[in-house]
C-alpha cells in the first residue's frame, strides 16, 4: 500500500535521527536551539501554555457554575452588566465557563486518544519493523485491512453500540488513529535496525526486546513528538464531528466541538455562542500545528539550509 510512500516521507527523519547521530554533541540540543529560532512555534507554545492555564484554572476564577442556568439571561449577548462577559446560551448558561470547561474535555480527549494511539502504534510498528519477515508481513496486512475500513463509520457504529461514555470516545478515536503511527514507526524501525549501533548491540548479545526498548524506541522519540502535535488537533477535530452528529460528550459536560456545533446552529441569532468557542478551538489547533511544524523543522537538519 502506501508504505513506500511513508518511508519516502520519513527520509528527512532518518537523516536527522537514525543515521546522523551516534556520538558527539546531543542532537537534541541542536534541535532545541533550532526550535527556539522558529518564532511561530515559540509564540504558539506560549499561547498554548496560556490557554492550558486558562482552561485549567479559569473556571475557578469565574463565579458562574458551568451548569448554572441563569433564567434572567437566556441567550443574552456578551455584556458586563449581566456578569456574563461572553454571553449565555439558550438556557442561560455562561458561555465563557462552558468554553473553558469544554476545553478541559477537548484537550483531554486529544491527549488521551493520542496516548492510546501512541502506545498501540509505536509498539506495533516497532515490533513489525524490527522482526520483519513473516511477522511484519502479517502485521502490516492487518493494518492494511483495518485501513480499508471506513474509519469514521466505525467510530459512529461504536458510539451507537456502546453509548457515549467519554472514556469510550477517547479509546474509540485512539484505537483507530494508531494505524498511521504504526506504519511510520515501522518504516523508521526498518531503517534503524541496520544502523551500526543496533548491529553492534546485537553483536554484543543484547536481546531483541531490550534492543527495541533501549535503542529503537528512544530513537523514534523525535518522530513521535512531531506526530503527537499533529494527531492531537486531528483528534480534537474528530471529536467535534462526532458532536456535530449528536454523538459527542454528554451534557452537562461539554467540549469545544460540541459548543461550536451548537453555536453553528444559531450563528445569526446568537453569534457569540459560536465565536467564543470557535476562537479557542481554532487558536488551539493553529498552535498545535505551528508547534508541530517547528518541531519537524528543528529535528530535520536538512531544512536549515
Amino acid at each position, binding site marked *: 500500500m502506501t508504505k513506500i510512500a511513508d518511508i519516502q516521507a520519513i527520509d528527512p527523519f532518518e537523516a536527522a535521527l537514525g543515521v546522523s547521530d551516534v556520538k558527539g554533541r546531543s542532537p537534541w540540543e541542536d534541535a532545541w536551539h533550532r526550535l527556539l529560532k522558529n518564532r511561530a512555534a515559540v509564540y504558539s507554545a506560549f499561547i498554548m501554555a496560556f490557554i492550558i492555564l486558562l482552561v485549567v484554572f479559569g473556571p475557578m476564577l469565574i463565579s458562574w457554575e458551568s451548569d448554572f442556568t441563569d433564567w434572567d439571561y437566556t441567550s443574552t449577548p456578551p455584556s458586563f452588566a449581566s456578569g456574563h462577559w461572553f454571553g449565555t446560551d439558550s438556557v442561560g448558561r455562561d458561555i465563557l465557563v462552558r468554553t473553558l470547561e469544554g476545553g478541559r474535555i477537548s484537550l483531554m480527549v486529544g491527549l488521551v486518544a493520542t496516548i492510546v494511539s501512541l502506545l498501540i502504534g509505536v509498539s506495533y510498528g516497532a515490533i513489525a519493523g524490527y522482526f520483519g519477515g513473516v511477522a511484519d508481513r502479517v502485521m502490516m496486512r492487518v493494518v492494511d485491512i483495518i485501513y480499508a475500513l471506513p474509519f469514521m463509520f466505525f467510530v459512529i*457504529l461504536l458510539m451507537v453500540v456502546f453509548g457515549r461514555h467519554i472514556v469510550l470516545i477517547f479509546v474509540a478515536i485512539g484505537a483507530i488513529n494508531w494505524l498511521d503511527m504504526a506504519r511510520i514507526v515501522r518504516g523508521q524501525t526498518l531503517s534503524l535496525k541496520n544502523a551500526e549501533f543496533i548491529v553492534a548491540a546485537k553483536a554484543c548479545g543484547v536481546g531483541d526486546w531490550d534492543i527495541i526498548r533501549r535503542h529503537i524506541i528512544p530513537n523514534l522519540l523525535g518522530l513521535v513528538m512531531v506526530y503527537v502535535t499533529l494527531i492531537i488537533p486531528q483528534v480534537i477535530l474528530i471529536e467535534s464531528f462526532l458532536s456535530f452528529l449528536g454523538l459527542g460528550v454528554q451534557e452537562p459536560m461539554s467540549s469545544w466541538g460540541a459548543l461550536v456545533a451548537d453555536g453553528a446552529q444559531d450563528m445569526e441569532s446568537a453569534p457569540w455562542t459560536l465565536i467564543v468557542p470557535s476562537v479557542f478551538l481554532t487558536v488551539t489547533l493553529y498552535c498545535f500545528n505551528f508547534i508541530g511544524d517547528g518541531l519537524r523543522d528543528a529535528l530535520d537538519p536538512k531544512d536549515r539550509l
Partner: protein
Amino acid sequence: MARHSLQRLLGLIPTLLMLITVAFLLMRVAPGGPFDSDKLLPPDIEANLNAKYHLDESLPQQYFRYLGQVAVLDFGPSIQYKDWTVRELIAQGIPVSSTIGLAAMLLAFVLGTTLGITAALKQNTRADYLLMGVGMLGISIPNFVIAPILILLLAVYAGWLPAGGWDWGIASMVLPVVTLSLPVTAYIARLTRASMIEVMHSNFIRSARAKGLPESLIIRRHALRPALLPVISFLGPATAAMISGSVVIERIFSIPGLGSYFVQGALNRDYTLVMGVVIFYGVAIIVLNFLVDLVYAWLNPRVRYDQNR
C-alpha cells in the same frame, strides 16, 4: 507488477470478509431494533415485520444468509426505505457522492499543490506566511462551521447559489465541493510546501542551477515530480478524510449521497443499508489505495514493489 496487482486484488476478499463480519456484529449488538419507534408496535405486528426481513432467524443463520446474498451482489431490501432495495439506493447515491468527492479531490489537489509550491518558492516571505496561515484555517475550523457561513454569505445574503439541496446543477455543487475540499486542500498545501522546499535544496536541483538552467524550467522539469510524491501518497488517506467529511457536508447541504445513508441507517438500525454502504466504501477505499500506489510507482521509478515487500 502484474502478479503484485493480482495479489492485491485477491487481498480484497479477506478484507471485505472482515469488514462485513465486524459491521454485521456491531449492528446487531447495538441496542434497539429497526422497528422500535415512538409508537410501540403490538407484538403480532412486530412479529410480522421481523418475519418479512428474516430477523426472526438465529444470528448465524442471518449472517450466512447475508454472505450468500452478497456473493451474488444482492444486498437485500432496505428496512427503512421500504420501497427500495439497498442496491437501488446505493446506485442512486454513488453518482452523487463520487461527483462531489472527485470534484473536491481535484480541487484540493490543484489548489493545494499550487498554493504549496507558491509558498515554497517564496519560503519565509510574508506571502508564504500568509498563504500557510490562511491555509491552516481549513484544518483549524470544522467543516460544519465553514459551510453554514458560506451558505449565509453566498446563498442567503448574496443570492448567488442555492442554500442546500441537490438537483445535479453546477450551482448546487459549488458550495459542497468547496467546503469538502478545504481541509484536504490545506493538508496538501502544507505537504507540497514541505516537500518542495526539500527538493529545491537537494543536490540535483543545485547542479541543474549550476548548469544555468532557467528557474522555471528547473521547477517544471526536475522539481515538480519528486515534490509531488508525498502528495500522491497522501491521496489515500485524503480519500478517507473526504468520505468522513462528506457525512457532515451531505447533512448540512441536504445532499442525497452515501454518507448520510450510513448515518441515517446506523441510527435507524437499517441493517441492510448500513452493511451495503460499508461494503461499498470498503471496496472503494481499497481500489483507490491501489490506484494511488500505481500512480506512485509510475511517478517514482526508484520504487518497485518487490523491494519493499
